[in-house]
């Protein structure tokens, strides 16, 4: 499986519910921040100045990282407890890094943990952004990002045309209601071609009866030639029915974590529908 | 006339000399018994004669052709072979096993043309298997199985027969039945070479005896000439009393 697909699934499976924000005392602004995984990296690199970042995860500088340019020159640490503790951080930011027991472990040792958390829809994404920005003691920056998102979403909603889009990965996987990708599609003013909830193979038989107006092709730029021998995408019916459709490429970086970068996906889809 | 002429046959394997200077002739009308102690080279002689083992020296003329240049099918049409080991991998019906004797003529157990079918029926009759044609081979006794193998050999209607211990592990009655069948085959015009351990049986039926010892042919000729107490002592190391064709083995020397 591509690493990004794995990440995306990990996020869907990660702990639910709004995690507690560590209290920052008036004087104690976190100055030694460590982020444990790729998703946390994005938030830390976006909101925090270089002098307060102790280390980010090794994935921050990879091609699929949204904040890749900002990560250049930033020291990295693998999300292994010993390595992280040796650096003596005063705040650890994570979404899935370090394993499910990480929060408990760091709490025992007395290091505050800021959890990115899971978001079922765009509203929750925006409130997450604000909450994390607050936890990093950068309230204004967070508010600015959220404001921009809200404005852009409203503009797009007005232009909604109700076309249908089929989201798919090179392995022929698509998703229906109940996932963040579905919310992205709805926010772009489009209808999801896949009506069954959850992650599944693209509906080969459905394609014989009706075709989507648009195709949202995700993660295609990271895998040049995915040779899945049993992929429904290789089936002649899929090829024939989808060949005439407009394809909107969706960068893996946009949809693999919940964050403000989801807006790029929403905008690309809305643009493609015109 | 199909006959086997073996001259000066030699076989060496892994440094051991299995055959040396062996020679004999088999013609239709002869029932030759090949005798000798275990390890004398009887099976090697047979296999090398048939071309199944590559000889090191000598010549074998099988019906006018060198045996090693015959294809398996051509060889099968000239000589029917009953080997020492006679496994039956599957519980086929008796008729199907006998039908395999027609393999060299392009027949298969389920596909017999009238000529093949007739040969199979004749062979079954000759070996007293008419009651057993639909029985499966895993339900037969040792004697019945021996007759099935004989029938298979006769179904080929080859002018010559070579049988390696066809009566091993059979009770006396079955032994005589098999030898009677082979005798009848020779009387009809066939030529048979039979390896036997039972000297009295060999003496009773054979027109010729070939005595082997340590890879060489020690003696050959009609029983009247070659069957002597001295020979029994030399070849088998046993004391025997000979009276014409009657043999009584008294004990080891």
């Amino acid at each position, binding site marked *: 499986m591509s690493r990004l697909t794995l990440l995306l699934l990990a996020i869907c499976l990660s702990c639910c519910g709004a995690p507690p924000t560590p209290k920052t005392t008036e004087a104690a602004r976190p100055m030694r921040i460590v982020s444990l995984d790729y998703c946390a990296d994005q938030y830390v690199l976006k909101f925090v100045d270089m002098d307060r970042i102790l280390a980010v995860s090794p994935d921050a500088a990879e091609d699929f990282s949204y904040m890749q340019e900002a990560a250049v020159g930033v020291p990295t640490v693998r999300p292994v407890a010993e390595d992280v503790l040796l650096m003596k951080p005063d705040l650890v930011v994570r979404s899935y890094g370090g394993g499910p027991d990480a929060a408990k472990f760091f709490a025992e040792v007395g290091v505050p943990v800021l959890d990115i958390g899971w978001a079922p829809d765009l509203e929750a994404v925006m409130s997450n952004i604000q909450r994390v920005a607050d936890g990093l003691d950068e309230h204004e920056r967070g508010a600015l990002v959220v404001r921009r998102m809200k404005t852009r979403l409203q503009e797009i909603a007005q232009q909604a045309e109700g076309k249908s889009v089929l989201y798919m990965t090179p392995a022929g996987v698509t998703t229906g209601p109940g996932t963040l990708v579905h919310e992205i599609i709805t926010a772009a003013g489009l209808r999801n071609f896949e009506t069954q909830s959850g992650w599944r193979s693209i509906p080969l038989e459905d394609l014989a009866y009706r075709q989507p107006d648009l195709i949202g092709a995700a993660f295609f730029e990271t895998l040049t030639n995915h040779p899945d021998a049993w992929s429904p995408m290789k089936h002649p019916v899929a090829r024939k029915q989808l060949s005439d459709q407009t394809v909107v490429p969706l960068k893996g970086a946009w949809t693999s974590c919940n964050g403000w970068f989801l807006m790029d996906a929403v905008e690309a889809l809305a643009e493609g529908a015109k | 006339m199909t006959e086997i002429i073996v001259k000066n046959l030699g076989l060496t394997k892994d440094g051991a000399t299995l055959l040396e200077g062996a020679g004999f002739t088999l013609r239709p009308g002869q029932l030759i018994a090949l005798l000798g102690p275990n390890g004398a080279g009887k099976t090697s002689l047979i296999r090398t004669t048939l071309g199944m083992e590559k000889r090191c020296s000598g010549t074998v003329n099988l019906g006018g052709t060198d045996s090693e240049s015959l294809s398996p099918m051509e060889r099968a049409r000239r000589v029917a072979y009953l080997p020492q080991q006679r496994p039956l991998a599957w519980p086929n019906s008796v008729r199907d096993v006998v039908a395999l004797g027609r393999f060299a003529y392009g027949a*298969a157990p389920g596909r017999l043309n009238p000529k093949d079918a007739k040969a199979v029926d004749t062979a079954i009759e000759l070996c007293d298997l008419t009651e057993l044609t639909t029985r499966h081979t895993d339900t037969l006794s040792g004697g019945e199985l021996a007759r099935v193998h004989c029938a298979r050999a006769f179904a080929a209607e080859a002018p010559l027969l070579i049988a390696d211990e066809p009566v091993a592990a059979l009770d006396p009655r079955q032994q005589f039945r098999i030898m009677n069948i082979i005798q009848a085959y020779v009387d009809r015009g066939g030529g048979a070479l039979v390896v036997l351990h039972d000297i009295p049986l060999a003496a009773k039926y054979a027109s010729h005896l070939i005595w082997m010892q340590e890879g060489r042919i020690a003696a050959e000729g009609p029983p009247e000439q070659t069957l002597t107490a001295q020979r029994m002592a030399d070849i088998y190391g046993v004391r025997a009393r000979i009276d014409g064709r009657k043999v009584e083995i008294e004990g080891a020397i």
Partner: protein
Amino acid sequence: MTRTSWLIPALLIASVLAMFGACLLGSTPMSPARVLSAFLGGTDAADRLVVWQIRLPRALAAYLVGAALGISGAALQGLLRNPLAEPGVLGVSASASLAATFSLYYGLAAVSPWVLPMAAMFGALAATSLIAIAAIRTQSVVTLILIGVGLSSFAGAAMSLLMNLAPNPFSLSDMINWMLGSVANRSFREIGFSVPFILAGAAILLASRRGLSALTLGEEAASGIGLDLRRQRILTVLGAGLATGGSVALGGAIGFVGIVAPHIIRPFVGHDAARSLIPSAMLAGLILVLADIGVRILPSTNELKLGVVAALIGAPAFVWIAMRRRAIND
């Protein structure tokens, strides 16, 4: 024999019915009448597309994979004189899978669509040749099966290693499909590239089947009645390798169905290996189509792999046959 004269027509009818039944299953609920009309040239183009291009190829692929394994199993059992011989057990399917995945994940298959089935065929031939050579040196079928187990394990391990080192990334589900078998999403395109190998292998096996009957007498006597042993071994190995390679290229490695089908058929054909070839192929194809129906009917979140269902049926049969034989041989 009256027993055999109705066997093949009965299997043919059952196979057609099973394939029709398989075409009734899919993500779009379609009544049998609708499916039938789509087969007979009904007016709904989408229905016809679904039935002819999606459902029928899948059913046909299952049948072809099964038939190839059935005829190879029957032939190998005839050659080795043992009812436990079969491409899956002897490591032939696993070797074919290994060669196929190697060609796929190291970019060789991109050169031409023929490369994949040919690679599978070479993998299968390498294994069948190895087994045939080993069979000359040892009379014990237990040894052969152990060699097969070793081959399967080696092929599986090598596959994991190669896929981890591959320059082209892979999906875990893809590897599972290769190792456990699947006919999902098969189209006439994949069938078209595999069928020549399956048919060529079957043709060679059928052309040389007379010799398999002769082998019931043992190699010595078979040679005595006119069988060219070397030629028989080469042709049977070649045919089984081609057919198995083609089936693996189409549906991954599926085992045990090549044991079950010949075993059921043999009593009906007088235990004659030659006459068991075609009925075994048909029965094995039928079994696999039914297994593929089962794969889709059984309620589970992820679709079960075809090879898993085949093993659930076939492995207990394998054990049972092995135990019965020991009882006889004792």
